[in-house]
């Protein structure tokens, strides 16, 4: 189990557990505040001939909500996570195979998409899949007073004027994916992007500490 406290004004404390499932090739459970997502990665595995791509791996993302069957909202989140993963995994190294990422929402207390992105990245690292870089997800809101706040709870998201979720690369903090809701100006968007890129550094530092802790226990 790995714990880290973010600055209380910026990010809720997060913690992560690696390799907790025995069947998948990689798994991780990521918690941000109260929001918890469990991710499992299978791959590179056999692929159905109808789905195989001749020069790269077929990437599938499945998001299962806490209650009920997956619906349109889950499908759209799956596509966003899939686009982020496709941009970072070196799929050309495993042609005609499949990589599946399965995400299960354990508890949703706000910032669900960014928690899913972080859990997916940790599970991909745990599975040992070759990647160009690691990525992280950050959610921020612009509240009624015009302040920018990170890692909102469900209440903050409901009352906010605009909600932004970005996924950010570890190499040069490039923006990989953005999903926004609400009304905002161009300057506010650019400001949010810049602040999220700075806050992403904390999450990447947490990844680093988590991985070094995992490998320090195993080396002899």
């Amino acid at each position, binding site marked *: 189990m790995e714990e880290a406290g973010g600055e209380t004004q910026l990010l809720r404390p997060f913690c992560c557990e690696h390799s907790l499932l025995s069947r998948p090739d990689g798994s991780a459970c990521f918690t941000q505040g109260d929001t918890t997502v469990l991710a499992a990665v299978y791959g590179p*595995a056999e692929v159905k001939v109808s789905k195989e791509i001749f020069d790269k791996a077929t990437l599938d993302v499945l998001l299962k909500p806490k209650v009920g069957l997956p619906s349109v909202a889950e499908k759209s989140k799956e596509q966003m996570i899939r686009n982020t993963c496709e941009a*970072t995994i070196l799929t050309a190294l495993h042609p005609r195979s499949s990589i599946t990422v399965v995400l299960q929402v354990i508890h949703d207390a706000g910032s669900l998409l960014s928690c899913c992105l972080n859990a997916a990245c940790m599970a991909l690292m745990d599975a*040992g899949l070759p990647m*160009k870089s*690691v990525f992280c997800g950050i959610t921020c809101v612009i509240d009624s007073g015009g302040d920018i706040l990170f890692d909102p709870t469900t209440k903050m998201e409901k009352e906010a004027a605009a909600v932004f979720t970005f996924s950010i690369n*570890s190499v040069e903090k490039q923006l990989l994916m953005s999903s926004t809701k609400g009304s905002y100006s161009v300057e506010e968007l650019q400001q949010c992007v810049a602040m999220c890129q700075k806050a992403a550094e904390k999450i990447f530092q947490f990844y680093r500490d988590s991985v070094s802790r995992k*490998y320090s226990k195993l080396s002899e």
Partner: protein
Amino acid sequence: MARDAAEAVGETVLAGDLLTFPVAPGDKLLCGPGLRRQGRAHASGSGLAACKCGVVRRKEPSVYWVESQQKRYVPAKGEYVIGIVTTKSGDIFKVDVGGSEQASLSYLAFEGATKRNRPNVQVGDLVFAQFVVANKDMEPELVCIDSCGRSNGMGVIGPDGLLFKVSLSIARKLLSPNCEVIKNLGELYPFEIVIGMNGRIWVKAKTIKHTLLVANVLESCENMTTEQRKCVFKKLSENVP
């Protein structure tokens, strides 16, 4: 922001971290798994990036690689693996090696096999074989003979025994010469063992109980430190009659 590789040895890196290697012109630099070319070559050396998360390791003088943990096997040429025969179709057997596709094994690739003298291999048998073709673009191919035509320990793995799976790093550790775990365990319970680089291990001891004990110890030595392992062996040696 690139780090110097010589300083980063023994430290963890994440995928995408740039490493510079101070290489004099004319020197050779060998890059192992987990590293790929990225970034511009600097005046002082060449740029490589880690593509897996793990610990940077070095073997003198200039071999570098990233050691990472993995459960899923990716076929590589020259590696010895344990496969399970799934189908017999015409002249070849299809063998499951735990990778993304099944490997093919020709029936002529056994010692002393000819068109008239077919090897005695059934569906469901375990085979210990070596990859002759294993790259991302082609179907992997196995053989049970070496380049001289001798079996050299490869072939169908004998009756009885137990096959179980461990992570790839444990299989590699157990294969290292003078592995302490195998030596100590062999002093307690004599056993036969075949270790495949795909994480599959086959053991056979005198009785079924001993076989299960050996299998459990090998599976759990992944999560134990050296001291914990010594305690387990001490407890086991007290129970051996």
